[in-house]
Structures are given as C-alpha cells and as structure tokens.
C-alpha cells in the first residue's frame, strides 16, 4: 500500500481519450441517474429518512468505541470469533491465519470494498490459495485482472462487447453478446466454485451492535452462498460499519438500496448472527468477524472531516458526479473512486499519496444532494484542499505561493488593483481577436486551448460608476 501515488491528471487524460470507456460510462450513468431519481421521488419520506440516517451515523460515530465493544460481545455470544486489525497488513495476516488453520485450498468471495482495500486476493494467492470472486461484476474484473471502477458496479467501465471478448479469451467460450447468456456462463462456472470452496469471505454492509448480526445486501445470491456453503465464513468490516440497533436497519436498508440501485429492496438481504447452530441445516461451522481500522481512526480524530466515516458505500455520488462520468473510477487511482474516493483516499492513504484528489472536483455539490447520509462532500474537499496546501511534502511550491501572495496583495489595495486591471487591458492587446482572447501563453493557455477568454474591459465598472451614478443621482 505504501507505494501508491495517485496521478489523477495522467489517469484522467487516458480515460478521456478512451472512446470505449466514454461510451460505457455514458450509457450506464444516464440510465442509472433516471432509475435512482425515480426510486427517491416515489418515496415521500425520503428527506426525513436521510435526516434520520445521518443522525444515527452521527451518534454512532461519536460513540464508536462503545458500539464496537457491544458488537464484539454479541458476536461472541452468538458463537462467532472477533478479530481486530489495525491496518491492511494485519487484516490480511488474520484472514490468512484462519485459512491456514483450516487447511483452506480455495476461497469464494462476495463483493467487498474492504477486501479490495487490503488487497486480500493478492495475499491469499501469494499463499497458494485459489480465490474466486463470485459477484458477476467482480468476477469480470478478476478475469480481466483489473480493479473495480465503481463501488456498486465494479465493471461499469466495460461495454457488453468488452465482456463478451473477455469471456472468449479467458473462459474459451463462443462469442456471446446477450447479458443472459454471459450471466449463464458465469453462473455455471461459479456454481462448482461454491461447492468446492473451503472458506467464504464477505464484506459487511451493516453490523448491528445490540445483536451481533451482520447484514449483507446483494442481488445475485452469491453472497448468500458465500456465507453459507463453505465450512468457514470470514467477514471483513471497517470500524465505521457498526450501527446500534436492529430497528435502525429499515432506515439504512431503505436509503442504501434506493441510492445504490434504485430498487425498493434488493433481491437478497442476509442477516447473519454467528455460525451454524445445531438446529440449522445450512451454514458454516465457524464465523469470524474481522474489524479493521486501517486509517479510519485517523479520520475520526479530525472533527472537520469526520463525516467521511458516515459513508455507507452506496455509490450514488459516483453516478451523479460530472467529473466521475467523464474520467471513470480508475482515474482516482485507488479502490474508492468518485467524490467519496476524492475525500477518503487522501485520508486513508495519507494526503501525500493523493494530493490531487481533493482538487479533482468542480465543487458542483450534486454529490451532497444525493448522499443518503448527507455527507457534505464539497465542504470536506475544501478542508482537505487547505490541508494539502499547508502540507510540507506536497503543498504549494514557491511559485504558487508567490502568485497567491501577489494576487492577494493586488486585491488588498484598490489602487494596485486598478493599476493591475488597467495594465492587463494594455498587455492583452497582442492576443485580442474580435474582442476576445483566443490563444494566450502558458499558463493561461490551459484556458484558451479550447475556450475563448473574455478581454479585460477598457473601462471597468468602478470607472463607469462615476458617470452612471451622477446620471441617475
């Protein structure tokens, strides 16, 4: 994890040139925006529900230590085992130890961003264990040896044709182009993987402190199989996933599912409390819950950006973001893309690893309006921008500081300001065409390469003011 350095400018330039990606993003996103907005519009209580979800998150995060301990106690009471991981390395080691103890040869996984975060597949495969992703999108991504580019729709950057070709290449099937056919192939391949797996690894959407129940939301049934068929089930969660009570679930399931897929309820919602009991027909012999920090308590310590931990990973901010729509998920350089990625990646990895991300937003605020837990993403971005600027390693260089000081000095003094505006009027003349500036030198060329820039007016408003004021007065 240490060697990650996000280069948004370079990544986004590649993404913008990729016509295939542009097409894939455009189709999927336009379609989803409609679906989500319908799911929210038809639900009269939406704003009330968002406010409740926000309140519960605020309360829980303020009392996180208490609820985590309560969760631990109740998972143990239900017969499960709880492990605490301070970082990605520890989390991987814990899961690897469990696998070794049970002589695990193959693992099936359901969709989990937390396991992406710790690069669990890499660790398990390194130890000679076969890992199979069973969520269709994740399965595709695993075949392509890529990273997910969306929290909910990991293969959103791929067109149907891409996937058809991928299946031909990796699974040696004929070229099928219908989603039903492709799904059928994946389903057949995966079915035997489920039956052969020794261990299932899942994420956690919500962990209920008062009952020790973990809740998993999905549509394909693969998580249900992952958590019930193999002998051992390991669930990985970030510390922020805990919620206090069972009765908080309707609120969260409603806001999560409507925001994530535009459904009223997903096809499957699994409530898992401990391992298989004597009376149960199905279920694992052992249930392990790994609770991971991995930078989250650092976020908790900053009051101004603490709300970043409220995120329930619905992906709505990705879909609505005009920047994400153009650059796709991989441009954000790590596992969490889009607006939420722009705020949590620099906080989880360290601001020096992704100093560009807080700036990779037009601050349009659309993310804030759709967020089901009302995270003020633009506000957090602005706070992080100021942290980047004052960071000695990656902050503003001498030239930038000088330019800002010069600008401030100009703005602080009306005379200098007037002089500067007058001077600009004369200096701009060689570049003026039809009253506009069409090709300015660097750094202004960053504007004029594709857009005209307005010319500085001969008579500023303040100069005209003297005349109009008298006319009217």
């Amino acid at each position, binding site marked *: 994890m240490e060697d990650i350095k996000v280069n*948004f400018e370079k990544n986004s330039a590649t993404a913008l040139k990729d016509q295939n990606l542009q097409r894939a993003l455009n189709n999927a996103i336009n379609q989803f925006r409609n679906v989500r907005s319908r799911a929210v519009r038809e639900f009269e209580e939406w704003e009330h529900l968002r406010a409740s979800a926000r309140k519960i998150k605020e309360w829980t995060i303020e009392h996180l230590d208490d609820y985590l301990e309560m969760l631990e106690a109740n998972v143990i009471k239900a017969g499960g085992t709880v492990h605490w991981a301070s970082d990605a390395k520890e989390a991987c080691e814990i899961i690897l130890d469990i696998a070794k103890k049970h002589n695990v040869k193959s693992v099936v996984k359901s969709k989990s961003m937390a396991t992406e975060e710790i690069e669990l597949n890499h660790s398990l495969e390194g130890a000679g264990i076969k890992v199979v992703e069973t969520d269709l999108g994740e399965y595709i991504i695993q075949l392509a040896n890529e990273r997910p580019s969306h929290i909910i729709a990991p293969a959103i950057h791929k067109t149907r044709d891409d996937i058809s070709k991928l299946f031909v290449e990796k699974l040696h099937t004929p070229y099928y182009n219908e989603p039903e056919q492709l799904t059928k192939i994946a389903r057949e391949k995966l079915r035997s993987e489920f039956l052969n797996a020794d261990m299932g690894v899942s994420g956690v959407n919500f962990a209920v402190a008062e009952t020790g129940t973990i809740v998993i939301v999905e549509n394909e049934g693969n998580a249900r199989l992952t958590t019930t068929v193999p002998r051992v089930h390991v669930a990985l969660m970030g510390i922020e996933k805990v919620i206090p009570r069972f009765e908080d679930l309707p609120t969260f399931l409603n806001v999560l599912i409507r925001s994530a897929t535009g459904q009223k309820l997903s096809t499957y919602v699994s409530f898992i409390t401990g391992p298989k009991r004597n009376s149960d027909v199905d279920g694992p012999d052992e249930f392990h819950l790994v609770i991971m920090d991995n930078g989250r308590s650092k976020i908790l310590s900053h009051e101004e950006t603490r709300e970043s931990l409220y995120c329930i990973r619905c992906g709505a901010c990705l879909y609505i973001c005009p920047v994400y*729509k153009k650059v796709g998920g991989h441009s954000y350089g790590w596992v969490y893309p889009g607006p939420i990625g722009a705020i949590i990646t620099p906080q989880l990895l360290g601001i020096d690893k992704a100093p560009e991300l807080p700036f990779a937003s037009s*601050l349009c605020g659309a993310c804030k309006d759709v967020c089901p837990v009302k995270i003020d993403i633009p506000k957090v971005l602005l706070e992080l921008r*100021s942290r980047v600027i004052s960071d000695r390693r990656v902050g503003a260089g001498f030239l930038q500081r000088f330019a800002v000081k010069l600008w401030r000095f100009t*703005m602080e003094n009306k005379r200098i*300001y007037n002089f500067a505006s007058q001077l600009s009027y004369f200096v701009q003349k060689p570049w003026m065409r039809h009253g506009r500036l069409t090709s300015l030198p660097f750094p*202004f060329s960053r504007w004029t390469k*594709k857009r005209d820039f307005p010319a500085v007016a001969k008579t500023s*408003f303040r100069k*005209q003011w003297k005349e109009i004021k008298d006319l009217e007065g």
Partner: protein
Amino acid sequence: MYILNEASKKIKVSLFVTCLVDILFPQVGVSMFKVLKRLGVEVDFPEEQTCCGQPAFNSGFRQDAKVLAKRFLSIFSEDGFIVSPSGSCTTMVRVFYKELFHDDQKMLEMVDLLSTRTYEFSEFLVNVLKVGDVGASYKGKVTYHDSCHALRELRIQDEPRKLIKLVKGVEFIEMKLSDVCCGFGGTFSVKFPDVSVSILDEKIESIIESGADTLVSTDMGCLMQIGGALTRRNIPVKAMHIAELLASGQ
C-alpha cells in the same frame, strides 16, 4: 419604461459587483444598477471593494482568504442589502465565510450579521423586492443554466426562471440537464482543463438541442466557460447574464 415600485423606494442596496464583473464584464454591473434603479431602489457602490476571497478559499489558501474576507466585511459593514450578480460570490459570503471563521466566534458574529443581508441579484428581485416583471423586453428564445452554487448552496431555482419568463418577447425553453455543472469550478477549469471542457461539451450539447438562441445564467464564471466555448465553436447562441436580459429593451 420606468417602473416605480413603492415598496422598494426605501430600500438601500450596496452593489457587490465582484472582481470578475468589475474587470471583465462591467456591462453586467451597469445592467444590474439600471434594473435596481428602475425599480426605485437606492443604489450605492462601495468603491473599496475588490475580491471576496473565494479563489483563495477554493484553492486551499485559507489564510489569504481570511485576509480578503475580513477586508470585505469591513467594507460592507454599513446597513442595507448587499446584492451581487453572482450566486457563487454570494455563497462565499453567506455560506463559506462561516466555514472560514468556524473557530472564531467574534468573526462569526460579524459574518452572521452580514450574510443575512447579502443576496444574489435574481433572488433579491423576486424574494425581497417581490417583483416579477421588471419591464424588460427581449426578442429571443431563452434557456437557463443553473449555476451550481446558486442552485445547490442558495437554492435559487424558480426565481431567475420567473424573471426570464416575464420579459416581454421572450420564449423560454427549459433545456435538458439544466442543473448539471458546466465544468467551470473556478481553478478546476485550468487545473484540469480537459476534464473541465469534456463536462462543458455536454452542456453545450444541451443548449444546442434546446433550440434557444440565448443562454442566461446568474454567474459570470459559468457564462465565461459556456460563452468561451460558444464563440470558439462558432455556435450562434449568445451567453448573457440575467441582469443584462432584465436591462434590455429600454
């Protein structure tokens, strides 16, 4: 045509024209002045004003932003409304100043006093002066672009539309995705110019598709971005600030 609105006669307004309008688009300030005058408002222009500090704030230079914010607060300390032709600069004063001084109780009190009397131009006309028809006339098909700060920070949505629709001769057309960002985003437009312009491309498409010949908005930032592409691509649509539209035809 001259409308004297009895209610607005005693109202005093200080123009906060913004540095962008002052230097690059003075006609927008003049238009705003004309409209307010026509409505019988007493208008003043505090000449010390320069910039509210938003570019520094948005770029992460909070200390520099604070210096300019304090300067702004002292310049506009007198009574009366502060009216600006920019949803974004109004947002800086009304919303972001609180953020900037969140740990400074004394400054927060000053910000509170000032922010409650600071308005974006179109919301001031509709919500404070309670006017709709300002006596303007303009012949054209007009569409409206929602500036992000005006829409999502100040919740200004119906006000400009109401004003535009009541201009004599205007055929108002609502374009698709009017509430989606134009890609400007202040320094974002030059920090990531290619991303910025690719977002702008969709906005331009929407505008062309609407069939409008005039694009109106409440912020010169967006209009600079959109207008800059319209002229560069020789698209026969005029980008115009709402104040200019409301001042036309006299």
